[in-house]
């Protein structure tokens, strides 16, 4: 038996979500009296692979096959590793790729699937997980009735738990066939903190007034090492890129800290942010619904409040 973790990497690096996944996998494996095994594919250095040992993973399976752009192939490869190691649980990050291939793996393994669980399962034997439903308006406990569970984890809901062990990398053969899906072209933004991976998110709404006013918001994000985001009308207007749009029809985020700057707090926006641990709202309207879900609020005009906030955070960061 085992707990198999799909350790996805980007630019040959693991991100925090993967370490969090390994932390959870280690605890699950302990509770099941078995071991956590990580699986990864494609070009990546041995040292980076072994870094998974910091969170309790002793065995790392690695195939140099570049299978991750074809969902079918990737699902086949991970499923094969799961069968080989008699996996009882397959853990995946809730990333674009993780959420795309998890359903395929579940079908192959005749397993139960839960996408985007919140934190450690409510029960492991039998497996019962916590999830959101109705776009965050409800929480649900779901029974995974199959013998095997395939699970994706919502980032920031379990946390990092160090448990250093020596990790051993085991090379697997590259026996991938020809892919059905091929990448023709790829654009990736460099040097930016990604919304999906960010611990802090600074988000602006129509209250930012125009595309030209984003500089102080970006500055706040810079100071805090945060990702930037926006409400839907802001991306519809073209003030900000579409990938920043948060909410029911955009991205669902679950950072430790979410700044809602000039966002009224419409239900469709809240659908994307209800998993945030702490919400700070700045709005000139004291009646804005965002204050009913925020933890901390400032009533005021962003034009004057934001520069002062930046000043205060800058001081804090520089230790004065």
């Amino acid at each position, binding site marked *: 038996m085992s707990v198999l973790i799909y350790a996805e990497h980007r630019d040959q690096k693991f991100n925090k979500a993967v370490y969090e996944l390994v932390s959870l996998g280690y605890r699950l494996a302990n509770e099941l009296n078995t071991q956590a095994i990580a699986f990864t594919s494609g070009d990546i250095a041995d040292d980076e692979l072994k870094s998974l040992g910091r969170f309790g993973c002793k065995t790392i399976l690695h195939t140099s096959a570049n299978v991750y752009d074809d969902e079918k192939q990737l699902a086949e490869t991970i499923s094969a590793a799961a069968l080989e190691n008699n996996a009882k649980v397959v853990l995946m990050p809730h990333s674009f790729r993780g959420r*795309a291939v998890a359903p*395929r793996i579940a079908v192959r393994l005749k397993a139960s699937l839960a996408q985007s669980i919140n934190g450690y399962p409510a029960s492991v034997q039998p497996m019962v997980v916590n999830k959101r439903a109705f776009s965050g*308006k409800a929480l*649900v406990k779901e029974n995974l009735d199959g013998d095997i569970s395939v699970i994706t984890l919502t980032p920031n809901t379990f946390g990092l738990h160090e448990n250093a062990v020596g990790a051993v990398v085991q090379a697997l053969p590259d026996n991938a066939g020809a892919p059905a*899906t091929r990448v023709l072209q790829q654009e990736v933004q460099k040097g930016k903190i*990604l919304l999906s991976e960010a611990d802090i998110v600074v988000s602006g709404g129509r209250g930012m007034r125009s595309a030209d006013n984003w500089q102080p918001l970006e500055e706040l994000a810079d100071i805090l090492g945060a990702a930037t985001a926006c409400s839907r009308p802001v991306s519809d207007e073209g003030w900000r890129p*579409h990938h920043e749009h948060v909410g029911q029809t955009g991205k669902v985020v679950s950072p430790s800290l979410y700044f809602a700057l000039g966002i009224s707090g419409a239900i469709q926006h809240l659908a994307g942010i209800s998993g945030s641990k702490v919400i700070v709202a700045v709005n000139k309207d004291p009646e804005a619904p965002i204050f009913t879900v925020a*933890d*901390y609020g400032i009533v005021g005009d962003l034009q004057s409040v934001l520069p002062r906030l930046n000043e205060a955070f800058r*001081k804090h960061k520089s230790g004065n």
Partner: protein
Amino acid sequence: MNILVCISNVPDTTTRIKFTADNSAVDYTGVQWIINPWDELALTRAIELKEAGKVDKITVVSVGNAAIEATLRKALAAGADEAIRVDARAADSYATASHLATAIKQLDADLILCGIESSDYNGSSVGGMLAEILDMPSVSSVSSLEIEGESVKIAREIEGGRQQVETSLPAVLVVQKGIAINPRIPSMRGIMTARTKPLKVVADAPADTRTSISTYEFPPQKSSCKMIDAENPEQLVDLLHNEARVV
């Protein structure tokens, strides 16, 4: 080129959700039903492509009881050519995908579009499962779809960027934001012609399920918001550092 759009019938997104007395199910009395927003965008894109002469036929398919026919009629009114209802219970994602697969195997679709998630159970599961059951390639988080002759150009969002991909057909595309901008609203004429368009009902034996709902609850109520004077942002920094411990 034939496109098939999988339609999930969901409560209007502004619906207040209620549970049954034992919290084991949702109380649907008085709920307004709509086409799942992503499925509506998928359908809109299919209609745009048909209007541009790139698509021959659009079929919509949904799993559920007779009550979902009103939603399928809306899809016909918006511009789909034919609707299929699989008369079975969408008991969980796996059962739904199995029922869809039964129906789709009888059809001749080049592209099968699913939404990235249904706004009720937020399963994010049916599209990928369907592709695996049908043994077809899948492309997920699709934000753009163009058709040029026999070639299908797909863009998908990836972490921090975008990829242009091509895939062999038939394929399942799991679509998200960007696939279309404004959902197509049925015109009066559309509503009239929808009445004469075919809505077929196909039967299917009950499928296996692999998950079940234990209980529902409401998210914990937030304690009231601490207000901070706009003149004193240092206090916010202090609270975030010492109380919330997030900076």
